[in-house]
């Protein structure tokens, strides 16, 4: 979500006004905040929970909580940052809950098979996807999802917030209820674990691509 400083400031000002009006009793003013931030909240929730259903549930719950706690926000600077923190916290709760449910069911998680332009197939193949390369791509995606799922809630939160959402280390520390040093270490640990799990698959994909190009 690249934004210029001017547009970010304009949005923050507009957010502050919407918050003020909501607190004054204009419930529809909250609609502006929901419509403006839903996409970002959904992206963070999806990256943290790993599935669409949970992410959508997190989004709804986050805005309900934000509305209920809006008076606590009144004196704070940035609604976007504040709502991000609520999202990360609630997503952690949802991940814990999901993990317990899965442990009970012991059933493989049915994952949505969304395809986008950034599909891993493009990483392992720069030409037409053959059935073999498609299988490799699907396998790599599965490995990445498993590697992310194997992280602790704190590691996944720290990695998502830092690597994908570009959040400041202080903000991450606030969500993890720790200090900056500890939050940094959590980011390092997450990347190290992901590397250990995924590097063999990534290198295999790279080799396959090289061989495919050579052949």
């Amino acid at each position, binding site marked *: 979500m690249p934004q210029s400083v001017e547009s970010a400031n304009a949005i923050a000002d507009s957010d502050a006004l919407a918050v003020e009006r909501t607190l004054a009793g204009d419930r529809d003013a909250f609609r502006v905040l929901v419509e403006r931030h839903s996409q970002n909240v959904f*992206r963070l929730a999806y990256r943290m929970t790993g599935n669409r259903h949970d992410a959508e549930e997190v989004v709804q719950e986050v805005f309900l909580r934000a509305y209920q706690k809006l008076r606590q926000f009144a004196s704070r600077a940035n609604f976007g940052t504040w709502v991000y923190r609520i999202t990360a916290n609630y997503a952690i709760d949802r991940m814990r809950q999901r993990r317990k449910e899965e442990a009970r069911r012991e059933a493989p998680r049915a994952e949505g098979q969304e395809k986008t332009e950034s599909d891993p197939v493009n990483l392992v193949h720069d030409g037409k996807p053959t059935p073999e390369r498609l299988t490799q791509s699907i396998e790599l995606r599965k490995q990445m999802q498993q590697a992310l799922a194997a992280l602790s809630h704190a590691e996944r939160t720290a990695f998502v917030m830092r690597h994908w959402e570009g959040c400041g280390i202080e903000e991450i520390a606030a969500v993890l209820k720790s200090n900056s040093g500890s939050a940094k270490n959590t980011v390092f640990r997450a990347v190290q674990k992901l590397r250990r799990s995924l590097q063999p698959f990534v290198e295999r994909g790279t080799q396959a691509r090289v061989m495919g190009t050579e052949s």
Partner: protein
Amino acid sequence: MRHVTEEELIAYREGLTSQRSVISQHLAACEECRAELQRIEAVLAALDTLPVPDPGADYGRRVWQQIAPRLPEKPTRSWRVWLEPGRLAALGAITALIIAAFWIGRVTKRDHVAVEIVNREQVRERVLVVAVGQHLGRSEMMLVELSNAEPIDPAQKLVDISTEQRRAGDLLQENRLYRRTALQEGDAGLASVLDELERVLLDVAHSPEEVTPAQLEAIRQKIEARGILFKVRVVSNELQQRQKEIKPAPSQNNSTKKEGNKI
């Protein structure tokens, strides 16, 4: 040349290092560390390809439609709002009022306690006056009966005063108690009369159950010489008067109840 550690490379890649220029210089010169960084970046680049589904352009509107019916009319008040300066001042004022009310309550209660103490003392005095009055009445009656005692059979030479003797013994015990109490209360006049009565009661109590008319006459004279019956009557009258004067102050509870009943 020391190579860059994995942790330093991750920090470099994620923008979490304060040694950025030092590491950059090293990477420019060290192929091994550059290759290591590329391996880390390849993993992160692969992760970046993980798709995030597009919820649609109208997603925000849909979220609003889903949550709007569940929103309360107004955001709830939080305890944190009490930390705002204005509210803190109000909270301080309320606290001061509560403390003041508590203090006033204690002072007022002290007054109530004082009234209760006064009442208690009055009640105690009243009980003492009534009890001593009755004691004096019984003593007077016993002394009168003793003064009028005569032999049942004129032929008999001994007079049976055993009943008066026993009553005198009982009255003696009571008299000692009332005399001490009168002394403690600072009522010297009453204590003096009770002291004289005690001596008479003592004589009677220690007399034989049957006395000769001469012995009985000696007791009568002793009673008359001391003027004890007269003194007892005077004191009894005084006590009756005091009894009328002592009216216990109405208690706060009673008055409150009455006020409550009026409402």
